[in-house]
């Protein structure tokens, strides 16, 4: 690296996006996080200290990527003027379908990261921003749903609805990472059934959807 001041190098060469893209590429090619920030920056020909001006850790980069995919999804569904007219259930469905379109651009990244969740009981650092953004969004959908009488407000439990939808999202993405059907059609069906079920469970309990869903899962093994 030529003898320039650090600040200049940064502005001229390295940006947050570039570091992030380089990191994802490394992760995808290696299949795991680099052993250290030093190793990563050394391979890039970048002073380690500069890395920290953008991110504090690899997890922070990943957190950024996931958070941004969530933000992009929410922005894209909300920018559609028909969306505002939808029922809460349709809003959530639209969200899922749009989200998978966004995730599709980084499917390899998601399929590397997602299985790690199985090993953990708590949300890892790299998913915290994503989760928070989703919970925020889910609360707005739950609010709409309760207002629109689609789901029932229940003492104590209502506060947990957003968490329930978070589990549903985890399921959907997990299903999608393992889906081998063309065009991920089975995930589309899974979303439809999962959302149906959740709204009926939270609204009025009906066994129909449970069986519908159970059969679907049973079948797709």
């Amino acid at each position, binding site marked *: 690296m030529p003898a320039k001041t650090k600040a200049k190098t940064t502005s001229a060469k390295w940006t947050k996006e570039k570091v992030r893209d380089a990191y994802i590429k490394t992760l995808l090619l290696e299949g795991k996080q680099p052993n250290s920030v030093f190793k990563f920056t050394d391979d890039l020909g970048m002073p380690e200290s500069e890395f920290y001006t953008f991110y504090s850790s690899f997890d922070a980069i990943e957190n950024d990527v996931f958070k941004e995919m969530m933000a992009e999804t929410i922005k894209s569904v909300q920018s559609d003027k*028909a969306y505002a007219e*939808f029922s809460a*259930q*349709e809003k959530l*469905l*639209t969200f*899922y*379908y749009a989200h998978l*379109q966004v995730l599709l651009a980084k499917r390899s990244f998601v399929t590397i990261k997602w299985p790690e969740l199985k090993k953990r009981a708590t949300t890892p650092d790299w998913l915290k921003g994503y989760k928070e953004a989703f919970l925020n969004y889910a609360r707005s959908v739950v609010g709409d749903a309760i207002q629109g009488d689609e789901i029932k407000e229940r003492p104590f439990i209502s506060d947990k609805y957003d968490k329930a939808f978070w589990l549903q999202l985890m399921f959907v993405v997990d299903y999608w990472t393992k889906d081998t*059907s063309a*065009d991920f*059609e*089975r995930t*589309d*069906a899974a*979303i*439809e059934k999962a*959302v*149906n079920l959740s709204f009926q469970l939270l609204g009025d309990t009906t*066994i*129909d*959807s449970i*069986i*519908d869903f*159970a*059969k*679907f899962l049973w*079948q*797709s093994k």
Partner: protein
Amino acid sequence: MAIKMSHTKEQDSIPTSKMQRASKFVGTGAKMGKNYLKYYAKRLVEGDTGRDELDEANAEDIYNSLSQLKGSALKVAQMISMDENLLPKAYAQKFQMAQYNAPPLSYPLVVNTFRKQLGKTPDQVFDTFSQRAVNAASIGQVHKAELNGKTLAVKVQYPGVADSVSSDLRLARPIALSLMNIKAKDLEKYLEEVEARLLEETDYELELKRSIEITEKCNGLKNVKFPKYYPEFSTPRIITMDWIEGKHLMEWVNTNPDQETRNKIGQALWDFYDFQIHTLRAVHADPHPGNFIITDDNLLGIIDFGCVKEIPEDFYKEYFRLMEPGITARKEYFLNLLAELEFFLPGDSEKEKTYFTGIFTRMVDLLGKPFDSASFDFSDKKYFEQVYGLADEIANDKQFRKSNAARGSRHAIYVNRTYFGLYNILHQIGAVVNSRIDFSELDLKK
């Protein structure tokens, strides 16, 4: 669900416990949960319930849930219930009543399908598009759309349907076995046939191609109306065609049309099938009332070519040689034909042969009856009671049930189903039809 429960009675005449159970698991949604519990409870208590019994119980339980679904297993059950009239009327009714109950596709999923398949949302493709489905098709649903002043019907397929056909069939197998009382090995050839048709039904590209072909070839027929199809708005999961304005067949029947109109529609229906069977040798094998629309100027609109059975030359010849009026009187010739059509099996004793000859004689005489009539009255209740009566008799007959081998060619499934469906619809229309087939003009020589 409460309404459905009422269908579970009327089991007095059912011969075996298998049948009893079989009839129970259709259309009793509310019972389902309980059955599930029972099943698991039984397994917990008894531990190693006999493997067979477990499979059977399992099949039934699963069937319970299947009856709640838009699944192909149900279609199989329906089809088998129609086949050969082997199942008594009561069961056939139950199967037909079992409606596909899965919730309709959400609008966001329809949009998603459009995005993936056409790269645009429905609103971008059409001037208007109904967010709600206006009709359920067997493996999809129909939306109404408008483009440049034209009203269109847009059929959208449920995602993952093609995938689930095979596994549904695996579920249907044990049920079919217990219903038909035939050996698994013998059932194989029938299930293969059914599976092939069902898989074809999920192939919208094939359906589009066939729809265009058949409607073009049937252009010369009188009093029928076909929609125009739009390949540019069709994909493996979407078919777009003209919207045919009118009443659904049963709806139209309920308006109590005059006899002349009934006959006209009935004749159009008969001619349409006659032309397909004898000229095209490929037949719309799903004569379900829902596939027909009567327009305001009393034309027969035909809207669904999902299930098309191509009739192989050999089978065609054998089948119609068997159906020729008066054939059962020519004993020896008739016996030879039955053998050729695989109705007799190598292991049959003389007694069995005589017994089955009797049954088949009556079946052929009865089912071939319209072929000899220039004005067959399909409203004739007596005729249909005879048909159902024979079916009941066969199903209740110990000797027939004891002989648990499958008889007849695999191709017969769909041809029989077609005729049976056709007769049923004509009965419901109450039409008097020239249903004579001039056998001297058919090329039936080997």
